[in-house]
């Protein structure tokens, strides 16, 4: 809607876009750097990686996709999507507790497919 924005306003937006661009690059570097730290806790590693990713995603959605100043109907549509996404992730993680726990790993555990047993090489 070009008529709704004045040139000055757009120029202001352009400065924001460039700032977000650098913030995203910094976020990427931080993600990779944190990965080389090797925290003792796997939960912490995953938590931090996802935390940085969520911030980066919020910057892209909020500013590049201008979700911060969008109309109500789009929020309503996305709310439905987010609700079902969260429900699906919740069910996924919940189902994990219903499954048997993984056994101890042994390097000789690999079992060849029946078709591969006794083949003629």
């Amino acid at each position, binding site marked *: 809607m*070009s008529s709704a924005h004045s040139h000055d306003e757009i120029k202001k937006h352009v400065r924001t*876009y460039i700032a977000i661009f650098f913030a995203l690059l910094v976020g990427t570097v931080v993600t990779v750097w944190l990965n080389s730290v090797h925290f003792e806790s796997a939960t912490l590693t995953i938590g931090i*990686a996802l935390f940085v990713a969520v911030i980066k995603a919020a910057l892209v959605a909020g500013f590049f996709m201008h979700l911060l100043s969008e109309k109500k109907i789009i929020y309503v549509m996305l709310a439905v999507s987010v609700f079902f996404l969260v429900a699906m992730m919740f069910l*996924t993680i919940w189902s*994990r507790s219903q499954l048997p726990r993984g056994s101890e790993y042994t390097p000789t555990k690999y079992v060849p497919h029946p078709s591969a047993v006794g083949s003629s*090489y």
Partner: protein
Amino acid sequence: MEIPFTEKPRPDTGLYNAKVGIWLFLASEVMLFGALFSAYILLRVGADVGTWPHGLLDIPIGTFNTAVLITSSVTVVLGWAALQMGNFKAYRKYQAVTILCALGFLGIKSFEYKDKFSHYEVWLKEPVTVKHGDKEVSTTRVLGHIEYNGKHPYFWKTETLAGSPEKKDKDGKVIKAAVPPVESFKLEVDPYHYTMSPKEMAHAKKDAAGHAHPVMEIKASQVKRLSAFVPAHSTFFAIYFTLTALHGLHVLGGALVIAYIWGPGAKMWKTHPEQYINRVEVSGLFWHFVDLVWIFLFPVIYLL
């Protein structure tokens, strides 16, 4: 045929229709990628300790590709802003960068895929001694690139070693020559295995950096199983290729649409500038979404 559309925001939604349309589509895309991400989570947490392949992807290349995609995302939005100010030339330049970035991303990704297709895991019947970093270990599972007759073959699997008989058509004409069985091949052994912890693996890689990979001669009769890093290798590579290839198709599709609007579709700027700006905005929204998916894909698949 004239497709009805609205250039101006409708009074009821406050938006032009294409914008409502693209957001509905993106809402469905959230569910598509969300379903695959949830599949990844279940496979990841359900894997036995020490069995999940990790550390096999090229992090510097992945990081570079992330930067390429972020750059393309900012040029899309800058191009759109330029167009709103009536600066068609600047828009053309920004979107040219976007298209180049998209092609660059796909090029780098295919380079990565190519390396995976010639990178192998070999399961042996008897343990062998290999170096993991500075340490010597005895193991039945080794990783590395295969060398056979001076070439690095792609897509080998266990059955490849047995060779294949001559194939003839109905008239007895040979359509495929017989392939002799492989007696032995060389493996450029990697100084690590993914059964190590991430920390051990990082150390082993560091210790071995700069040294040439030792070459090991492996007899076909010693091999229990052999697989390139293809979907059949493990659930990790199955979900890796599913997610990244689906994302790659989105990059390709988005680039095609943006290139159409940029090139042959640009005539519309003269006749219907409002509608043209809307098209640029809607294709841009899709492009940002593709970038957004990668923002989650990169840490989840490359780093965790």
